[in-house]
């Protein structure tokens, strides 16, 4: 009870409330504009959050996160292009419905589903996090090392594409994190005499470079920056009554749990959840032929599941300090900038901060509902923002943001170099999420490995003899074999002319998981 009052007093101060509303609006815009995402929004606003107190900072970033995941719905419905990978499946029924002159109904269903997905999943994660954290604080360096190792491997093996590319990206992230002063003994590593590198590769410079500069330049080079045509007819009212909406309660519950579970697994987030839930809804529907023609159930499945993934992804982030996807990795980065160690001790050491984070996710979901409902008519304007102006402003913000973190031009150059690294990685088909995870978890991996080795005289043995650590390592090794099994299974299916629904759908748009 005391905690609730403390959190509410913190969150509802006028200045914090304004910051949360601003964050949600920014998030919706970043989610809505195709090519940008919640991740870009959080990266761009990290330097701004630096000047705030740690609580206000996390309120701001959390608000952007919720807004960003929900905002993807807008462009999916109005222009048929997913604003984020999280809303690919929303396009399948949302866009045809809008084209039939029922854009309000599509948006209404999407907005309600987003709200339910986020709100309930965050409530569930609030129950699970303390339970998991209570167990997590008992872990020694051996278990933490194995957990980080397992998380990186899972992110790599469960995402799409060649496993080697994911592993290479993760290892490059780990190597970048080795630059600077080594943990435990403080030896200088790979600094090549550059004083600015002593404290390591700056997080803000790296994130802005990889997720903002490289993303924007890639979009521009691909020619994805033309302003879309939007039909504004059919945007008025909510389009669906609550009674009609909740008649789909079974589908809502099913999609919700698919999203929650997929979000919880490391490496899989809202980007996959919406496709799986859509395929599931279609498979179990009495009228599967109506999917893809502007059918309510398609939008409900996609939007409930992608938002439910938020709550799922937050559980390992808060309870274990392990980010499940890029956006949560950024949020952990945000905490680290404030000197807060996101790890198993986060809930014990900073309970107020954690509950403020949950609070902002809940309040954010409510604000998204209100803002999207009343702001529906302004959606076309967001999408019509000329990209050349928007991108130019974002690039200038990147430069100023990178400068403001360390107050040196070196950091701006670092950001530019990281932009080049981002493009080189794209050239070699390397995904970015394992890279950022390797970068964030690298120091945790190394310091726990070295601590574990020095605590006993048995060297590496305790990593294999302690049961939890052993299980985690076995899971990691087992999942390394999974892609080979999957490949064999898929090859067999392809040979038989079968292809899974999710595989087919993910090929419709060239949207990459970020």
């Amino acid at each position, binding site marked *: 009870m005391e905690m609730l009052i403390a959190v509410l007093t913190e969150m509802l101060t006028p200045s914090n409330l304004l910051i949360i509303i601003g964050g949600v609006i920014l998030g919706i815009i970043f989610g809505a504009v195709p090519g940008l995402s919640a991740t870009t929004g959080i990266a761009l606003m990290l*330097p701004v959050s630096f000047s705030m107190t740690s609580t206000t900072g996390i309120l701001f970033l959390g608000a952007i996160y919720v807004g960003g995941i929900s905002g993807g719905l807008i462009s999916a419905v109005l222009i048929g292009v997913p604003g984020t990978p999280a809303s690919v499946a929303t396009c399948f029924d949302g866009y045809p419905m809008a084209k039939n002159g029922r854009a309000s109904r599509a948006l209404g269903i999407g907005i309600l589903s987003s709200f339910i997905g986020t709100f309930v999943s965050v409530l569930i994660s609030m129950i699970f996090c303390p339970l998991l954290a209570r167990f997590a604080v008992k872990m020694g360096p051996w278990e933490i090392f194995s957990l980080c190792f397992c998380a990186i491997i899972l992110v790599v093996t469960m995402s799409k594409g060649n496993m080697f590319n994911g592993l290479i990206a993760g290892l490059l992230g780990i190597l970048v994190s080795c630059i600077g002063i080594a943990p435990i003994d403080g030896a200088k590593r790979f600094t090549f005499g550059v004083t600015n590198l002593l404290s390591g590769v700056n997080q803000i410079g790296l994130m802005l470079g990889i997720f903002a500069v490289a993303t924007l330049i890639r979009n521009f080079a691909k020619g994805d920056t033309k302003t879309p045509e939007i039909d504004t007819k059919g945007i008025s009212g909510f389009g669906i009554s609550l009674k009609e909406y909740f008649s789909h309660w079974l589908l809502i519950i099913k999609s919700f749990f698919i999203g929650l579970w997929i979000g919880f697994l490391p490496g899989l987030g809202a980007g996959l959840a919406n496709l799986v839930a859509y395929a599931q809804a279609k498979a179990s529907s009495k009228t599967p032929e109506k999917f893809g023609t502007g059918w309510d159930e398609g939008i409900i499945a996609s939007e409930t599941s992608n938002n439910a993934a938020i709550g799922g992804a937050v559980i390992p982030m808060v309870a274990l300090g392990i980010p499940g996807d890029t956006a949560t990795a950024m949020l952990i980065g945000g905490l680290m900038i404030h000197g807060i160690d996101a790890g198993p001790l986060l809930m014990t050491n900073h309970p107020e901060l954690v509950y403020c984070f949950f609070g902002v996710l809940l309040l954010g979901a409510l604000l998204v509902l209100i803002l999207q409902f009343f702001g529906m008519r302004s959606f076309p304007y967001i999408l019509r923002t000329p990209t*050349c102006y928007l991108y*130019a402003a974002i690039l200038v913000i990147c430069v100023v943001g990178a400068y403001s973190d360390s107050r040196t031009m070196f950091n701006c150059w670092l950001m530019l170099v990281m932009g080049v690294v981002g493009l080189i990685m794209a050239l070699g088909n390397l995904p970015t999420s394992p890279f950022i995870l390797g970068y964030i978890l690298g120091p945790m991996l190394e310091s726990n490995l070295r601590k574990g080795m*020095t605590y006993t005289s048995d060297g590496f043995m305790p990593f294999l003899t302690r049961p939890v650590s052993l299980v985690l390592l076995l899971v990691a090794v087992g999942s390394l074999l999974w892609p080979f099994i999957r490949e064999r299974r898929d090859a067999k299916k392809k040979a038989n002319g079968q292809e899974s629904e999710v595989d087919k759908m993910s090929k419709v748009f060239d949207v990459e998981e970020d």
Partner: protein
Amino acid sequence: MKLNKNQVFSILLILFGGFVIYEAMQLQSLFAPASGDVGPRFFPIAAAVCLILCAVGKLVTEGKKEAKPLFTGEGWKRVGIMFLLLALYLVAMAWVGYIISTLIFTPLLVLAMREDRKIRPVTLILFSVVTTVVLYLVFQMVIQVSLPVGNLFR
């Protein structure tokens, strides 16, 4: 023998891994070996060895396939222009400071990315001034970061 893009990429990764191992070998542990600590070189070397193994894996699995081109020729030109503009912006910022460099480079960035959109000069000037001033106010006044004044004006 002509190598394709995937092969070149994998070989460069292997070379990079070798370079990391070479550099890491020079590092000295600051602790006595009796402590059981593996020292600062173990972790990067282990990561680099894995990197080399994975690069070999990439070479074997993807090496025969020709990589999908990331951009067209026009696309690469755009990449070059954007990085050049940003680099010049940073050089200008170091010399003439935030305000002048941003007033000059914001419109240049807009023009570079305008595609076939018609840009009215008045809008462009207004946009640049507003962007520069708003960011100045936010960062200099609210966040209290003193933005660069430029070496020329020091």
